[in-house]
């Protein structure tokens, strides 16, 4: 009876250890959000100098037939995982984990005419459910279950110099490339199966990864 009083805490602790193992919280932040004031956002007489002074360099920019455009982009990804395990001899080293991920995105686009004056501006802040998944993992491994790599593509500026050494479908598509700063802008996470990327025949992320090896 005396031992019964002392052990409930330990019993609870080891029950938790034996079952609720491997819960995880994974957080990623890509770039810092910008905070434009109303004066630069809505004013058609705003020059791009004022936008640069207020927000700094854009994440990407492109030439347009009648001017150019800036894009500012920030992203936060949060994945919550809930894991359970068994106390069976071999199974105790593994966990069954369920993960659910959300992405908070913020995108600002500024379109300027050829004289550098603001023609159009748009801001979008949204929270996306990126996906859910189930996995069977080693117990001390913390890895994302939901694939968010398509949102985390590296900045195009890092690979710009090697753009013509990429796999053939991408190199041949360089005249329409969204990465060059000459043929348009693209938000992170845009599927590769639409628009100019369709000419690249395969997923550009896999191609660029392959070319870097």
């Amino acid at each position: 009876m005396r031992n019964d009083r002392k052990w409930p805490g330990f019993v609870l602790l080891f029950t938790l250890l034996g079952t609720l193992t491997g819960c995880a919280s994974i957080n990623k932040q890509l770039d810092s959000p910008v905070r434009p004031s109303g004066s630069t956002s809505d004013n058609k007489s705003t020059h791009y100098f004022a936008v640069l002074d207020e927000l700094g360099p854009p994440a990407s920019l492109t030439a347009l037939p009648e001017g150019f455009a800036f894009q500012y982009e920030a992203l936060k990804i949060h994945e919550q995982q809930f894991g359970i395990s068994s106390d069976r001899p071999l199974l105790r080293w593994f966990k069954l984990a369920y993960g659910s991920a959300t992405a908070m995105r913020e995108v600002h686009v500024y379109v300027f005419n050829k004289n550098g004056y603001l023609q159009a501006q748009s801001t979008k802040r949204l929270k996306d459910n990126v996906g859910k998944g189930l996995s069977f993992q080693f117990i001390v491994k913390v890895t994302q279950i939901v694939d968010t790599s398509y949102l985390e593509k590296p900045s195009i500026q890092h690979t710009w110099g090697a753009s013509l050494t990429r796999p053939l479908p991408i190199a041949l598509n360089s005249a329409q490339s969204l990465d060059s700063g000459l043929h348009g802008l693209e938000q992170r996470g845009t599927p590769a199966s639409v628009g100019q990327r369709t000419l690249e025949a395969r997923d550009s992320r896999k191609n660029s990864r392959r070319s870097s090896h």
Partner: protein
Amino acid sequence: MIQRLTGDWLRGFPPGLPKPDKSGLIFFLVAIVMLLSGCASWESDKGVEPLWRQAVQAEWKPGKTTDADVIKVLGPPSQIITLGDQSVYYYLREKNRGKAYIFILWNQTTQSVEYDRAIFFFDKKGVLLKYSYSKPVSASNAK
């Protein structure tokens, strides 16, 4: 060693509370060790060297500075873009930082990617029109 540690700890146990026995305490310490199983942090940099943070800003004078002056001080840019009759030199430095706390019951990882950018706009003669640097990362984002 463990016997000595647990003995010392039990002697300092607050009066009035039921004292756990030594085996229970050893069990508890083992549980703590299992819980606090690992921590990690990492940091990596990518891109061009951020020389614009060292260069004296007064060196850049719109209307006077040329593209050759900028390249001489900052080196080759990450990207060169043609915007109609303007050209743009885009410099980018990426800092990737992360932390992980790996326990048995609870794991947490945080990763942040920050970009330090410098951008220079030149006219068709290569004379500087405008330049801009990234704003310093705010305290809230610097975690």
